[in-house]
């Protein structure tokens, strides 16, 4: 087990995955304001405990804002309602639209905080190895870890490709439109390069007997305390309970 900076980091990866899943699905199931805001507060408290509060808040805002802006615009001006707040051309901004937009926003933030906290506090390999220890086939585990780890690699590759295109005069420093135009010549090499990488990595793995059948010994042992197992089940039951209550109209 690698050195980790906080007790939250040291939780079993599956526990953190369950917290993220219950937080994300829970925000949708509960709806309204109280449930998603409670989830947001819990996630922010956990992030504070894990020492990633500022980073999580910043990343969550950055990830959610583009979607949030479009959600607000679409909901406020297109949602049918009786209370018109103001008009822009043919579009009415209704109180019902504002209410719907706000509810969607708190859900989005609750989801991004839940998932963000998991990503920032969990080593992808630790999560996948833990799943492998629980019986997930090595091939599936590899696909999962390769997918998770592909993101920073893709970002690095995109940066390098962007540099090479900028060196040939592609302007990516101007307006929003200029930046979008600058993205097009980057997409091709990123995808082709990634496919080549996948092919080469597969060959390298096969040459090291990756698909050999039989049991594997994992050298990385993840702690999984009894109370964590209880917590996971409690969270799962709470989520199911909330879903049932929602379906039956009790909340």
């Amino acid at each position: 087990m690698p050195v980790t900076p906080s007790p939250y980091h040291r939780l079993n990866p599956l526990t953190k995955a369950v917290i993220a899943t219950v937080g994300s699905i829970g925000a949708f199931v509960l709806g309204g304001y109280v449930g998603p805001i409670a989830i947001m507060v819990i996630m922010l408290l956990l992030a504070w405990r894990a020492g990633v509060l500022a980073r999580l808040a910043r990343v969550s805002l950055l990830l959610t804002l583009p979607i949030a802006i479009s959600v607000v615009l679409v909901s406020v001006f297109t949602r049918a309602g009786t209370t018109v707040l103001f008009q822009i051309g043919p579009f009415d901004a209704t109180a019902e639209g504002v209410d719907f937009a706000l509810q969607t926003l708190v859900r989005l933030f609750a989801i991004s905080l839940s998932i963000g906290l998991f990503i920032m506090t969990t080593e992808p390999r630790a999560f996948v190895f833990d799943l492998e220890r629980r019986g997930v086939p090595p091939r599936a585990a590899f696909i999962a870890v390769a997918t998770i780890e592909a993101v920073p690699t893709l970002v690095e590759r995109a940066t390098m490709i962007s540099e090479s295109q900028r060196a040939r005069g592609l302007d990516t420093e101007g307006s929003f439109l200029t930046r979008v135009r600058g993205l097009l010549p980057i997409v091709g090499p990123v995808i082709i390069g990634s496919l080549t990488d996948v092919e080469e990595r597969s060959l390298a793995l096969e040459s090291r007997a990756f698909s050999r059948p039989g049991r594997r010994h994992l050298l990385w042992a993840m702690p999984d305390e009894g109370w964590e197992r209880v917590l996971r089940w409690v969270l799962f039951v709470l989520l199911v309970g909330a879903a049932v209550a929602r379906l039956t109209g009790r909340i």
Partner: protein
Amino acid sequence: MTRLDLEGVGFVYPDGTRALDGVDLTIGAGESVAIVGQNGSGKSTLVRHFNGLLRPTDGRILHDGEDVADVRTAALAARVGIVFQNPDRQIFAGKVRTEVAFGPKTLGRSATDIEAATRDALAAVGLSDAADANPYDLGYSRRKLLTIASVLAMGTPVVVLDEPTTGQDARGVARVQQVLAGLVADGRTVIAISHDMRFVAGSFSRIVVMGGGRILLDGPPAEVFAEPAWPVLASSYLEPPYAARVGARLALGSTPTETALVEALAARG
């Protein structure tokens, strides 16, 4: 013509790694300069400053005496073209011709100029026969030559090549040397990063040795590869070319190339 001046240039990456530390360097118009050094010595970081891909955290960069701190990379690209090491991180077009035309097109050249520049650049690297091929149908060596052509077509007064001979067979290396000689003959400035000491000794009039983000040696091949400089080269995990080592063993003085070695032997009689 573009003269490059670096004055006390330092660069620290966001993760805190100091890649350049007080680099003072002047590269005159029309010079051919090789930059060598171990991995992580700051070579690639240095050349990315020439066209503004990276901006110095200390010091300044001047093009013909003008501080380029506020000039966009898109504008600097008309003066300094950079060929990156990995062709697969540069090529994006479905046709060789389109790939080569991309640079002059972004620089706003006329259709006639773009066509002529594309044709000439492809001829220079020996890819005229592949103008309509898909770049990914070419072998690695030819894809690398394609990236060189795509920068040559821009007609920049300064051309920077990052590891131009990596992955090239003898024919490819000869082709690269021929291209470089053509550029130098045209009066263009050529700068290359390389780990191939034989190539740099034979193709460049000046060699800059880097280590730890600083310039350790700077001079003509005969000086940089002369025996007294070997400890400095060793500190950057570099070995002088074979011809230089043979010349030193035979007490022939500094013989960085085979030609210099043969001439020294002939002179000895």
